[in-house]
């Protein structure tokens, strides 16, 4: 019953396909999508603003909760930024531990994503399966950091907890478990008949488009854009890993066309890559301190007297996160900017979502692994019935004013 009626279909902000509130308005023709409009802002919590009223240690835990899935990447980028300003030297062991947690996080995030993607296309068994094997890395993280999610491991100048021999044994066991599982799991993920039928050839983002929309992370790599902050601007232990290369679907012998399948393939391959990185780090884990040796109070006091700006970049599971701070002899930073991966990747939805079927919407949306929590930059709230909407010009002017102000201060 194809009909040529065009009507808008609202998906979200509350919809079972998205675990996060975001609103899409599609123009639908029959079962085809003719256009899309995206409305962000439902989870805007004003973190950047709150941060300006907190001290430097509190901010870590705040930024951990930008998003619970890459709850390591955001604080890491922040710590890197602060360490950049304060020129704090991070001990080698801490760098390695940071790498290990970061990769564990990537592992869990990619497994989580595969599950969610399977759920979006109704493949609940695969969902259950990936989330079931994901429990292993969560167990490992829990033992290692004290919580399954929101690890609270970072501090400025290092990490808060060491890897005990017991922990390293767990990690080794986890690695064995996954190494053994990987071949079969990747076969299920990459070769399953119905899964391929649902992911191949839809949501195409060409290399040019990926470049144009500044796609980052697996989204960019799925389109064949070899872009990976870990390699381009290495931090942590990534300096020391010579064999680290950006993943692309070419690694399984497929020319990248930038469809959902390619992005999935990139993630599945990155699972393996993460495992190798963790193994490398465990093998080469240097001895020594795990932080700069200064307690929280000391750090706060030290930063109070500093002035300057710093930037931290890190490759979160979803792509590049970038934090920018300005310090100005105060107990709080005077400026904190978060640039989250979904913020860049969100725009790639526009080419991806046109000319697909309704049934493809969830999987295509999920394919960039969106995390609107971190992408919600601004919200329009109509308090007191004020129906005003700001124009681009007005906002542009405002932001210029604001930056001038903070530069003058």
């Amino acid at each position, binding site marked *: 019953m194809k009909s040529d*009626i*065009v*009507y*808008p279909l*609202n998906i979200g*902000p*509350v919809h*079972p396909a998205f*675990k*996060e*509130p975001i609103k899409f308005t599609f123009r639908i023709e029959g079962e085809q999508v003719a256009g899309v409009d995206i409305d962000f*802002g*439902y*989870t*805007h*919590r*004003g*973190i950047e*603003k*709150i941060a300006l*009223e*907190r001290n430097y240690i509190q901010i870590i*835990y*705040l930024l951990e*909760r*930008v*998003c*619970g*899935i890459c*709850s390591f990447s955001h604080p890491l980028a922040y710590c890197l930024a602060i360490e950049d300003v304060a020129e704090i030297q991070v001990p080698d062991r801490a760098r390695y531990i940071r790498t290990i947690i970061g990769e564990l996080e990537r592992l869990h995030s990619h497994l*989580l994503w595969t599950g969610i993607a399977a759920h979006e296309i109704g493949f609940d068994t695969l969902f*259950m399966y990936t*989330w*079931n094997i994901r*429990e292993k890395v*969560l167990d490992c993280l829990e033992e290692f950091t004290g919580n*399954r*999610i*929101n690890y609270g491991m970072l501090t400025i100048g290092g990490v808060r907890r060491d890897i005990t021999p017991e922990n390293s044994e767990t990690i080794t066991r986890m690695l064995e478990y996954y190494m053994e599982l990987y071949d079969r799991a990747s076969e299920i993920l990459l070769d399953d008949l119905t899964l391929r039928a649902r992911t191949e050839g839809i949501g195409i983002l060409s290399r040019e488009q990926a470049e144009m929309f500044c796609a980052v992370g697996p989204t960019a790599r799925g389109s064949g854009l070899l872009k990976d902050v870990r390699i381009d601007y290495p931090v942590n232990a990534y300096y020391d890993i010579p064999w680290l290369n950006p993943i692309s679907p070419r690694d399984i012998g497929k020319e990248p066309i930038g469809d959902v399948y390619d992005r999935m393939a990139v993630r599945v391959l990155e699972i393996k890559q993460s495992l190798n990185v963790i193994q490398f780090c465990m093998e080469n884990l240097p001895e020594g301190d795990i932080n700069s040796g200064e307690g929280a109070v000391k750090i706060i006091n030290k930063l109070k007297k500093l002035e300057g700006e710093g930037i931290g970049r890190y490759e979160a599971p979803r792509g590049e996160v970038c934090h920018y701070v300005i310090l100005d002899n105060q107990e709080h930073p005077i400026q904190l900017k978060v640039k989250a991966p979904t913020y860049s990747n969100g725009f790639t939805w526009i080419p991806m979502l046109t000319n697909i079927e309704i049934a493809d919407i969830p999987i295509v949306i999920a394919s960039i692994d969106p*995390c609107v*929590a971190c992408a919600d930059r601004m*919200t*329009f*709230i109509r*308090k007191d019935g004020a129906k005003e909407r700001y124009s681009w010009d007005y906002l542009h002017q405002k932001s210029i004013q604001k930056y001038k102000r903070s530069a003058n201060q």
Partner: protein
Amino acid sequence: MVYYYRCYNVIDNNRGTYVKKINYKHLKRSLWAYHMNTGSCNACDIEILATLMPRYDAERFGIKLVGSPRHADVLLVTGTVTEKIKDKILQVYQQVPKPKLVMIIGSCGATKGVFHESYAMAGPLDTLLPVDVYVPGCPPRPEAIIYGVAKAWEKLEEL
């Protein structure tokens, strides 16, 4: 031709019928949950999903995530309520047929938690809706969520 569907969540509660003497007891063995994210950091949401996974398997207690608030018995709310989503959560709450329970998963939903100074908050959820069970934790472990559900049963038992 463009069709405009009026947003379908306009409901008229008087047109609904239900057993006057509300018997919560029957909810106990089959709690269907509708999960709503009202500005959380996703950690609680993934823990809710993890609760349904083989490791914790909440389905063995008859708990099931449903896709429509009209099918739900429990509203699982995660996250602090942002201004922009306030109307939506109220609407969803209205659409859940009586009798209904509200559970808050995570600290930030109960009290705003770590986001306490934010300007974009419409307040903790209990200022907007009656809340039945609080599950603190940031995020709570799946077991803690199941424990929260067990608490809810206990409450239903007493009613």
